[in-house]
């Protein structure tokens, strides 16, 4: 429960930041940035949050089931714009995948050729 309380706390902190500072970033993303920073700065220890975080991310799918059920209210919009949605969905997904993959491969090649600072680590994966 400690972990869950911490995650909720950062979520709330993000929400407060979004509203007080009028940031156009979703509160949960601000919460994510602050929480990650807190982990790196050792303000929050990994063992406090690990189990709760694992439980939440593993069952993330459950949390947006109600949104999908909500489509029954949007069938007219979906039907009306079916072709535009299908083309944009398939097209942009393929673009993101190919661009992200090839850029990462190109830039990563240099990192894998550079001399190892921490011996043997990670290079095997590329």
């Amino acid at each position, binding site marked *: 429960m400690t972990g869950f309380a911490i995650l909720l706390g950062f979520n709330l902190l993000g929400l407060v930041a979004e509203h007080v500072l009028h940031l156009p970033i979703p*509160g*949960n*993303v601000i919460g994510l940035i602050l929480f990650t920073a807190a982990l790196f700065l050792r303000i929050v220890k990994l063992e406090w949050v690990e189990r709760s975080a694992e439980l939440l991310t593993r069952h993330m799918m459950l949390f947006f*089931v109600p949104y999908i059920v909500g489509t029954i209210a949007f069938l007219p919009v979906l039907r009306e714009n079916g072709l535009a949605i299908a083309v944009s969905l398939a097209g942009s997904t393929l673009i*993101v995948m190919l661009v992200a993959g090839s850029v990462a491969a190109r830039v990563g090649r240099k*990192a894998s050729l550079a001399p190892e600072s921490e011996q043997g680590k990670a290079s095997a994966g590329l």
Partner: protein
Amino acid sequence: MNLHEIYAHPLFGVTVTVGAYVIALKVQGKWKSIHPLFVCSGAIIALLLMLDIPYDDYRAGGDLITFFLGPATVALGVPLYKQRHFLRRYFAAILSGVTIGSVSGIAGAGLLVWLMGGTRELMATMMPKSVSSAISVEIARQAGGIPELAAVLTVLTGLLGSMVGPALLRRAGISGDMPIGVAIGTSSHGIGTGRVIRDSELQGSVSGVSMALAGIVTSLLFIPLYGRFH
């Protein structure tokens, strides 16, 4: 006490959703190719239609479930932190792949909707769909799109990416755990991550990290766009 009062109680929506989810996971355990989201959502939609329950009644409980997307998004910081050593080494590669990939995806999705004659509302709904649902829903809401539709499109994007992704990348000559992880995580968030983690744990970790980074990068990229949609 009539039936309507029971359906409109939050306990009804929560119980039905969690129950359907557990059944969907069991179905997936038997037949691996059946995505649990189809089973779960399909069963609930069928139940609502059969018993003639208004969507708004179900929503009383549904809202309690979607609430957890907030803390679940924050929790993505844990894989980011756990993979910090790998991240440090390939930071430039992962970040540039995620950023350039996200920019092309947002531009591509917007452009394609515009070319197909879609509305501005539909553009705002489609553009953030490659990132994790918890984030795309919020961005769509803030940018003037339809959050519920954004959630559905996000799921479809994830399903598409996880189904065709690995084979497509192989054909395009993109190989290695790092580039594949970046491609899948950036394009198809948690659903894609769940798919590649079965092939390779490292791919899954890079994919998880890329999905969290793509969420952050996409949120930041949308800032200059907000004004244009209001």
